[in-house]
């Protein structure tokens, strides 16, 4: 997330100046950062085209398509996080990374919890036509 190239020196470099667990383009020269954005653009373009292709082609086993779409979407979100938002597990990113983990946890609870509970309720509910008869 910190994209400053010159303002701070604690870029978490290893002993020989090699980055330690850093997102590409998080620090460094303008050219390094340009390359990181370009790589992100290329990866996400490929993943987007793969998503649209797999949704429209008949070549993939039908029930497997939603799973494939989910995998591609998660991969693309990861590409965006690393190459555009520069989130990583580098030492100066611990707080950002923990916050992200908590956010993902809450979103997962809400989405999958809602789906599970509503599917269960639908399953347990009296069918609508029977309900109408009972009220008569």
């Amino acid at each position: 997330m910190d994209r400053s190239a010159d303002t701070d020196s604690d870029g978490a470099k290893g002993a020989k100046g090699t980055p330690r667990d850093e997102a590409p383009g998080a620090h460094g020269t303008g050219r390094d950062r340009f390359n990181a954005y370009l790589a992100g653009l290329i990866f996400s373009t490929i993943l987007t085209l793969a998503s649209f292709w797999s949704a429209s082609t008949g070549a993939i086993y039908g029930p497997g398509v939603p799973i494939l779409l989910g995998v591609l979407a998660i991969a693309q979100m990861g590409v965006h996080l690393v190459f555009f938002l520069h989130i990583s597990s580098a030492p100066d990113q611990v707080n950002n990374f923990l916050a992200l983990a908590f956010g993902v946890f809450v979103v997962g609870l809400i989405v999958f919890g809602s789906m599970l509970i509503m599917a269960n309720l639908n399953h347990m509910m009296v069918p609508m036509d029977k309900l109408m008869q009972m009220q008569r």
Partner: protein
Amino acid sequence: MSVAGTPIEEIPLSLRGPAPTRVLVGYGFWLFLLSDIIIFGVFFAAYAVLSGETAGGPTGPQLFDHGRVLIETACLLASSFTCGMMAIAADRRARAGTYFWAIVTMALGATFLSLELAEFAHMAAIGAVPQRSAFLSSFFTLVGTHGLHVTTGLLWLAVMLAQIATLGFSPAVQRRLLCFSLFWHALDIVWVGVFSIVYLGAH
């Protein structure tokens, strides 16, 4: 930052003193973005539960045009890239480059928005309004909220251009530009979820 020649990475994080303002602002704004993503998560949950409840009205595959969505996605992806170019130019304090990439970003965002509005207008014209079914209510809430965020982002970018013109590249303006690019990239992440789940996942 290093004490008497000690490399910074050998000093424990807790002893390094306060973090630079830029890092703190980025962290605070990241927390806001995560809370925003949780709002979208709630709308995604509502859509996932209600997407089959069409009440005899139009269904997703009848309404969605994959070609249009692909162009919308391309616009947002390209605008994320140009937003990164703007960030690089702004760190160099290159005024012309910042303006150029900001205007390209705005143009791509506006193209996305006009395509989305054209889709909404088409849906409204054939009677697929939010009141029609639970599916359409949750669709318009989710996609409309994302569109509102893009609109806000465009307004924010316009304000940032005015601030660069009047205040120059002061540290405060630089930090606001950092927050803007985080916001814009986060919107792109949400859109990945929207096109994968809403448009491509419709069946």
